[in-house]
């Protein structure tokens, strides 16, 4: 059963929702709409409190698959986990995947999602061949880089505001196995991270680092660097682990400074012990958190905020300052992920990825103090010429959003007049 709340469980707002029954259905005119995929966005970009959510759960069919070219035509509500199950046995994989496989194709397009291969492959939008967009006036438009081009670029990363993506053609990626050859490299400082990123970008399709956000001084930015390629051969058979579930909300303060610190240390030292080469199944490699159902409940009922930003790579000082600020506040989480984005320009007018270094981490929602800290971090990001990821946001200011997304005014012209979101009302 679906509950209409964002993944960060903040903000909380009652939602009205309908499910579009099939790809031929229309939207009527008595409300404002916002497509809802699987609610894996952290903040209010997937909420529409004044209007109605249009859940795409029944748009879950494949329309065609050409196993020689790897072009998959599917409805927009289909989830990545399903696509993998279907196409991997035929030697295909998702061209770009976020850190959870429970996202829909529509959600992946609307946030132009990125993965650990951004430096070689760009964003999900780069693999969208075309899609059908249903507008509130009943028109259905095929959008591609050559047809309705402006609407194509507005809809990729368009936060669900330009209409409902009904189906899309996606170019998949050929793979030889379900496994990855992974190299784990513990490193001790931000400079080392930078060197590792630089040294890995040619020969590794996937690069990312887990960072100990509480390390300070010389250790600032220390963590574990993971670099990987799809393996040529299968690995050891995968033991099917029973999924863990977080059954209840943890008491709000159970994730205090000390538990977080202990966890971060453990992760770092565990990684240090497991350093070296290994063969990993795609599931634990790409989706380590998907093994725990409802892990978002560990932050308690007040929810949490994820903070994900990018700053230009020539500005490591900015990231250093921000990390120092987070470390001294001691409020960050064990989920700190650091990644260098590559040069490939994003297609979408509001796409988040751009060349630079990107950090993402969670903050348990402790009210005013949390919001003040994040506002403070925004100032660094703004000064550095960076940006914050709307998919993760529940609080950035109008002014910040407008600075981060300079194509906003172009974008406005493509917004469907009957589409709206809480995020959009807040920032635009």
């Amino acid at each position, binding site marked *: *059963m679906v509950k209409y709340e964002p993944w960060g469980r903040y903000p909380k707002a009652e939602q009205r929702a309908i*499910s579009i*029954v099939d*790809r031929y259905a229309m939207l009527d005119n008595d409300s404002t709409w916002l497509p809802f995929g699987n609610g894996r966005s952290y903040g209010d970009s997937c909420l529409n409190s004044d209007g109605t959510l249009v859940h795409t*759960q029944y748009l879950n*069919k494949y329309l065609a698959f050409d196993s020689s070219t790897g072009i998959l035509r599917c409805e927009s509500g289909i989830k990545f986990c399903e696509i993998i199950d*279907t196409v991997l046995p035929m030697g295909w994989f998702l061209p770009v995947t976020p850190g959870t496989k429970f996202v829909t194709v529509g959600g992946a397009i609307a946030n132009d999602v990125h993965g650990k291969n951004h430096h070689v492959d760009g964003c999900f939008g780069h693999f969208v061949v075309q899609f059908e967009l249903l507008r509130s006036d009943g028109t259905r438009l095929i959008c591609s880089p050559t047809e309705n081009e402006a609407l194509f670029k507005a809809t990729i990363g368009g936060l669900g505001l330009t209409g409902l993506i009904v189906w899309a053609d996606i170019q998949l990626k050929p793979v030889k196995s379900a496994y990855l050859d992974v190299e784990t490299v513990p490193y001790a400082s931000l400079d080392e991270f930078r060197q590792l990123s630089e040294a890995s970008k040619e020969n590794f399709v996937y690069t990312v680092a887990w960072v100990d956000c509480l390390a300070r001084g010389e250790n600032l930015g220390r963590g574990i660097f993971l670099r990987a390629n799809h393996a040529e051969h299968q690995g050891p058979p995968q033991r099917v682990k029973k999924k863990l579930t977080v059954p209840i909300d943890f008491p709000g303060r159970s994730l205090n400074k000390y538990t977080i610190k202990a966890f971060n240390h453990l992760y770092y030292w565990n990684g240090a012990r497991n350093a070296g080469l290994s063969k990993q199944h795609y599931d634990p490699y790409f989706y380590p958190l998907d093994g725990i159902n409802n892990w978002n409940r560990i932050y308690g009922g007040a929810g949490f905020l994820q903070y994900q930003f990018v700053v230009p790579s020539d500005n490591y000082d900015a990231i250093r300052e921000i990390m120092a600020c987070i470390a001294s506040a001691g409020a960050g989480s064990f989920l700190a992920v650091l990644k260098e984005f590559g040069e490939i320009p994003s297609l979408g007018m509001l796409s988040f990825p751009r060349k630079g270094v990107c950090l993402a981490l969670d903050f348990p929602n402790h009210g005013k103090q949390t919001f003040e800290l994040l506002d403070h971090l925004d100032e660094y990001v703004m000064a550095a010429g960076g940006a914050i990821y709307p998919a993760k946001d529940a609080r950035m200011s109008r002014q910040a959003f407008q600075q981060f997304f300079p194509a906003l005014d172009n974008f406005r012209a493509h917004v469907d007049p009957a589409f709206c979101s809480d995020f959009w009302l807040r920032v635009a």
Partner: protein
Amino acid sequence: MSNVVIIGATSAVAQEVAKLHAAERDTLILIGRNATRLEDIQNDLMVRGAADVSILVYDLLEDDKHDELCEQIFEHMIKPDYVYMAHGVLPDQNTCGGNYVAAKAAFNANCLSHISLLIRISTRLKALQAGTLAVISSVAGDRGRKSNYIYGSAKAMLSAYLQGLRNELFAYGVHVLDVKPGFIDTPMTADIEKKGALWATPQKVAEDIITAARKKKNTLYTPWFWFLIMTIIKNIPESIFKRLNL
């Protein structure tokens, strides 16, 4: 590599059942009244790995065509292993409670059309001495209550019919599964506010159905806790039940 017939194939639950069979490389026949949607489902199942999928377009209320439909099924598929029946409608109790024409239509859609088809199909399966019939009834048939007893009594009749049929077909090696789901989040219940843990996804219900059909269970409550809920509900004395607002 089973042979599977799905009647009412556009139903959300039936689609999920079909997907699970497609992933097993099974051969399917889909029956429903909406050709366009059936074609979409056909394409979907082919991508998912089905060995073959064919479509028969019939409005299942037209029982004068049921002989022809049955001919068609067995022409396409000599020996079905599983026959699922999932069509149905959820009528508005207020409308059909006071209107016999509407009530009769609800009985046709939720029970009589099923029986008409089952009579014909079971004759064939009896001759083949094989096959499993899995028919979706509902927990609503376990006890009549004022908010939906037209639907409920149609399902009650269907379940009683299935019980008798199972008894009869047993000697022929043909199995009958009566599926009793609780609340499922599907287009049928689109207008009902879905909150709380009692609501299941069509995926979950489909998994349960397939497992129960394989294991030749007689009655399936899905999700399982509906067995407990209905046991309690069935045991409330009528003198109390009649006063309740259910």
